[in-house]
């Protein structure tokens, strides 16, 4: 494989994934300008370590691992936000109970004939709920639910076990539902005003 072939392969891969890189970077940094810097820096780093990509079929997880590592090493340190509480991955703390109980409230609401919840939910409200998730859960929810990464790919990106991805998914989605549930009065208020 010549250097030109490698460049062509790399350029095509970046073109294919740049929107997803930006979407993920935006949720990691929560700022458009920082997300752009993060993507550009990750692209430069990826090219610098293209020799470490042993299997070209694994380009996507390899690229996003570099993006995530760049965020962790460069951007998270600069964040002015207080350190987020890191929830223990093994802390199943009544997860099934939480999901069950909370979803029951949700379901009663969801089951109403109008079923307007997701229609009423504004994009900004949903993004705010995602952005307020602890980073470990936010990243997994974005990679899996938004960008369609498998649990194995997500594990590769984050350098964690697939089982941890699975437990973070459950917890992240439960926390997201909890956050959305708290917004219910606002949504219902908006609906009554219109």
């Amino acid at each position, binding site marked *: 494989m010549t250097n030109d072939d490698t460049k062509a392969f790399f350029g095509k891969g970046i073109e294919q994934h740049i929107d997803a890189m930006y979407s993920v970077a*935006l*949720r990691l940094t929560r700022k458009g300008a920082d997300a752009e810097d993060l993507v550009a820096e990750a*692209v430069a780093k990826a090219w610098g370590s293209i020799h470490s990509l042993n299997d070209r079929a694994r380009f996507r997880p390899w690229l996003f691992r570099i993006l995530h590592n760049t965020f962790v090493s460069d951007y998270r340190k600069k964040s002015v936000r207080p350190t987020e509480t890191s929830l223990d991955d093994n802390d199943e703390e009544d997860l099934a109970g939480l999901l069950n109980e909370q979803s029951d409230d949700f379901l009663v609401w969801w089951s109403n004939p109008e079923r307007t919840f997701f229609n009423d939910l504004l994009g900004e409200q949903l*993004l705010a709920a995602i952005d307020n998730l602890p980073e470990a859960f936010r990243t997994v929810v974005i990679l899996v639910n938004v960008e369609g990464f498998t649990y194995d790919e997500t594990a590769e990106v984050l350098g964690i076990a697939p089982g941890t991805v*699975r437990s973070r*998914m459950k917890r992240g989605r439960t926390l997201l539902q909890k956050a959305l549930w708290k917004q219910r009065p606002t949504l219902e208020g908006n609906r009554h005003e219109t």
Partner: protein
Amino acid sequence: MKHDIGCLQAIEAFYAYLDGELDNPESIEEFEHHLGHCRSCFSRIDMEKALNKRLRETAQKESPDDLRDRVSKLLAKF
């Protein structure tokens, strides 16, 4: 007659099922059998699918033109 896994076991498998990560055909069959006669879990799956769709619609963004220009210039230097 198929074995009913019950709601708690179904909840454990919920996201793995939705995310296409439940790869054992028997587990999928048991889960779907449970959905077939449990209104609560069926509604929950329905809700989760709608939330997934909304998540994708909201959080997938196109990269701005200035970022594309910047990356193109970067690639040209390599």
